């Protein structure tokens, strides 16, 4: 039942919130609501048992004639994703308080609607329901970015929408095709989909379609060109939702079914996918070095980071897969943190052009410290969350191929190069007229960062909790490979 509450609660909240008029009340309501949602997720976490594969299962008939049922549940991977989602949404909402968006009711309502769709994606145990939530998430994302976005937002978000929508249509075709290959009676239930019998050729095609859909979402080189524009054009909350949670849908999808369903094709084409992902790592890292817009730099860094995750997924080793799962969580936390920092800087100085900033650390040491910690997380310093993920990913990739791991490992160097460059140019040095008046973090802003920082260090120091939760299910997925 908890899973259903997890889906319905944000929906309900988003509907109620439209009726509220006062901006302050809207914010408080949204925050309180999302915190309750997080509470529910925590309750689910507590109830969760790793040994059992029937966690929090909820089943109801929906389109029984079409083999579609409302089947919700959680395994370790989805549990972590739900935790991530419900954890980040309050943070994002809180971080949005500093802005006074026009039409706040619609804004917060859309965020909650998106939370519902994202949660839905992660808890669906039925292929078609998964797809529906997958697409549903796109609509609020589009509107958040398009309505509250920056310059040139119409063109950018439209491209984003068309690109990702087209990608997911590929998934729909593959899904439908797959449906008819499931054992009788046909069903979209994951277990049935896993059991579908496919010829090698069919596997290849379905793999291709899934890969396209997921790769666009993630995004993997060379399907990434919507991403930097979208991240930099979107409002802060939009970038956070997209980069923090939404792109995880792609990786989650890969783990959740692309691998079990077309395991032979996955094995066959894994090296191709890894090469693409790794190319993306190097490519995006190199590009990031010269970006002058902070958000755009982070956007490219994100391409590199998720490229590593994708490469890890295709390495098909337990270590890499565990790394991918934990890195999804870490990346979500880190990039949201980075975007909040950038947002604060942009709001206070009116710019996020690296060249015109500098010396912020003099005026805002707390901001500088927080920024540094998040940055360390994202460049994978040991004892931060990023390290656990990257260590496992690279180790797993190494088990697959030493050369790939060595090239992918360049991210360790590159991320230091561009991140420190950004830090140096914005936070360090002397102040100038843009940054002279910048004020330090207020306590309420600290409240946004404290949970993020705690998570960065917690995962870095005690990843066991998260790793153990996901492990049985990761092994389950990998069992299909053998």
């Amino acid at each position, binding site marked *: 039942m908890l899973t259903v509450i997890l889906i319905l609660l944000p929906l309900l909240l988003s509907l109620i919130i439209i009726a509220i008029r006062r901006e302050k009340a809207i914010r408080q309501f949204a925050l309180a609501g999302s915190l309750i949602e997080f509470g529910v997720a925590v309750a689910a976490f507590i109830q969760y048992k790793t040994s059992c594969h029937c966690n929090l299962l909820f089943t109801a008939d929906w389109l029984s004639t079409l083999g579609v049922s409302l089947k919700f549940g959680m395994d370790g991977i989805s549990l972590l994703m739900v935790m991530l989602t419900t954890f980040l949404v309050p943070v994002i909402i809180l971080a949005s308080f500093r802005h006074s968006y026009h039409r706040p009711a619609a804004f917060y309502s859309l965020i909650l609607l998106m939370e519902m769709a994202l949660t839905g994606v992660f808890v669906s145990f039925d292929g078609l329901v998964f797809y529906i939530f997958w697409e549903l998430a796109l609509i609020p994302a589009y509107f958040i970015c398009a309505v509250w976005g920056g310059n040139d937002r119409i063109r950018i978000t439209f491209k984003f929408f068309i690109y990702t929508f087209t990608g997911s249509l590929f998934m729909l075709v593959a899904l439908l095709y797959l449906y008819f290959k499931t054992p009788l009676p046909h069903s979209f239930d994951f277990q049935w989909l896993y059991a579908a019998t496919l010829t090698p050729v069919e596997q290849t095609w379905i793999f291709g379609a899934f890969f396209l859909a997921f790769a666009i979402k993630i995004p993997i080189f060379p399907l990434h060109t919507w991403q930097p524009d979208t991240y930099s054009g979107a409002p802060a909350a939009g970038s956070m939702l997209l980069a923090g949670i939404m792109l995880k849908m792609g990786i989650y999808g890969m783990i959740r079914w692309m691998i079990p369903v077309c395991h032979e094709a996955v094995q066959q084409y894994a090296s191709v996918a890894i090469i693409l992902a790794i190319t993306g790592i190097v490519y995006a890292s190199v590009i990031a070095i010269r970006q002058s817009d902070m958000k755009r730099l982070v956007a490219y860094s994100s391409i590199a980071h998720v490229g590593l995750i994708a490469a890890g997924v295709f390495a098909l080793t337990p270590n890499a897969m565990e790394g991918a799962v934990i890195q999804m969580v870490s990346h979500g936390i880190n990039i949201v943190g980075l975007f909040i920092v950038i947002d604060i800087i942009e709001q206070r100085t009116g710019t996020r052009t690296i060249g015109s900033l500098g010396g912020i650390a003099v005026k805002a040491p707390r901001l500088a410290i927080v920024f540094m910690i998040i940055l360390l997380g994202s460049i994978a310093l040991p004892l931060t969350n990023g*390290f656990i993920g990257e260590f*496992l990913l690279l180790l797993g990739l190494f088990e697959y191929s030493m050369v790939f*791991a060595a090239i992918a490992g360049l991210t360790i160097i590159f991320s230091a190069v561009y991140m420190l460059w950004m830090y140096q140019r914005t936070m360090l040095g002397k102040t100038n007229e843009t940054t002279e008046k910048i004020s330090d973090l207020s306590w309420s802003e600290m409240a946004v960062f404290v949970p993020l920082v705690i998570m960065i260090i917690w995962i870095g120091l005690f990843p066991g909790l998260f790793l153990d939760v996901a492990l049985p299910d990761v092994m389950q997925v990998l069992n299909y490979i053998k």
Partner: protein
Amino acid sequence: MTEIIILIPLLPLLGFLILGIGFRTIPKKWTTLIGPGTILLSFILSLITFINTLSNHQIFIFSNQHISTSAHQHIYTSSHYLFPWIHIGPLDIPFAFLVDPLSCLMLLIVTGVGFIIHVYSVGYMKDDPGFNRFFAYMNLFVFSMLLLVLGANYPIMFIGWEGVGLCSYLLIGFWFKNQEFNNAAKKAFIMNRIGDLGFLLGMFLIFTTFNTLSFEQVFAQAKSMPMGDATILAITLLLFVGAVGKSAQIPLYTWLPDAMAGPTPVSALIHAATMVTAGVYMIARSNILYVLAPTTMAVIGITGLATALFAASIAIFQNDIKKILAYSTISQLGYMFVGLGVGAFTGAMFHLTTHAFFKALLFLGAGSVIHAMGGEQDIRNMGGLRNKLPKTWWTFLIGTIAIAGIPPLSGFFSKDEILLHLFGHSGPMWVIAVTGSLMTAFYMFRLLYLTFFRNFRGTDEQLHHLHESPPVMTTPLIVLAMLAAVGGLLNIPEIFGGGSWLSDFLAPVFADAAAIAVPPVLMSPATEWLLMGMTLAGVGVMVFLAWNRYVKQQPQLLPDSARRPFPVKLISKKYYIDELYDLIISKPVLRMSRFLHEVVELRLIDRMVNGVGNMVVWTGNTVRFIQTGNVGFYMFIMILGIILILFLNILI
């Protein structure tokens, strides 16, 4: 015992947390207490650990003549398991500490020298607005270094490994308003990261080979591997890349001179005594692996030798007091690697120890000079400080003698041990090494003479300002000077009638390696004496030459812009290596970045993506003109359609 071990790194961490969180509110007085205080406590606990190990060690020595049997390992090695860190099936990385003679030695150096430098810093950083921040970073550094030293497996060592890199970054860029310093900090971090990637890959290869990352298990399994195994070769080479980055060896050394941008205590602690020696420690720790890979050993030896000579040659023509010391550090690290390369693990560790003493001393002395000179670092503007800064002068002299390798101070013994091993290994290499050590003597005495002899060459203002440093700074100097003087006693070789205490102490750590490796060439005492004598004579000549050139005659000090003969210019410009790296790495990467972004990204990929969209729009725009609005045309097309359908379906 475990509690004590845990407390050793935990105390500095605690210090860091307190100072880090309250960096704006905690008064300086408290900081003075917390910063060095936690390190002192750690040092005391380290001493206890050391004594404990030592007593176990005695049992070990008495109870066992055959040091290669592993049955007694538990006596001198104690593992301390804290909590599981990463555990996925076979991949089990606990947070665990390993205490054995090697880590004991390092513990003492890190906490001991660390404490002394902390005390010194109280005076040195007294007026700095970032006082609390400084001590927070320093404590964090000690914490990281202790993790590095104590880690019972490679990943924990790696935590410390990267942690010290971070602290180095933070401390080099401590005065972050200066972008030059920040650049230096960034450079240090990135170069370290290049090495770290090697370390990381080495770890991965260890894991895929041995299925474990814990030192004990890896080494236990490695023992049975064949000599010259290719995997081991790869592992050791990769780990060595890490060491090269951290210990500033060719080709990744250029960050260390730049790192002198940090406050002088930082240079002393991080960039001389502890962090940069981490590479040496790591290789010594993995000795068994290295012994099995003779090729790597050769590579290490050659790299070390090249670095030693190369850096020493650069140091001769430098004029910045700290830069000279920095190149000297690189050069001395080179010697340590030479030692490792020829299997003189104890020698390397011995030199590491003595180097920690005298180089920390030299840096702190330099700091004292800089302090007195009001921030001036160019030795061309110094001179005659002997009388103004007597304590500094005396301690600096001791340091210089120690590093130059003049008996009976510590440097002589440690360097000599390495040189002897080297001679046993290869004559020509010995000659090169000795050449380097002669250069060392020359540039160190040049530094000494220029700084403390003849007349003061600085401004009048500086002259008025000159004063001896407060006791809080000079006391550490004196303590270190004493250590530098007597440090050699740790491992007096037999021909001097010494007991080679350090060798014995460390012997269990290197026991397995010693069992496998080619036994060292036994030299007659006569040869040893001869070699020593030759070296010493050379050093003496160098000291005299420097005296002749910089004290006896009026020293000719050319400004940077002066014209010089090409070889001199080449060396004084540090062989243009920075420029070369800039040319072959930084610039191409930046150009590549621009190319990828502007050409590949925007013109190629994005244009292709947009092209698909534009194609659709274009097609739509073209196709819609079929809709002419003309009924006759519509009819015509429909008839065509009908005919086509009928034709295709019925007639064919």
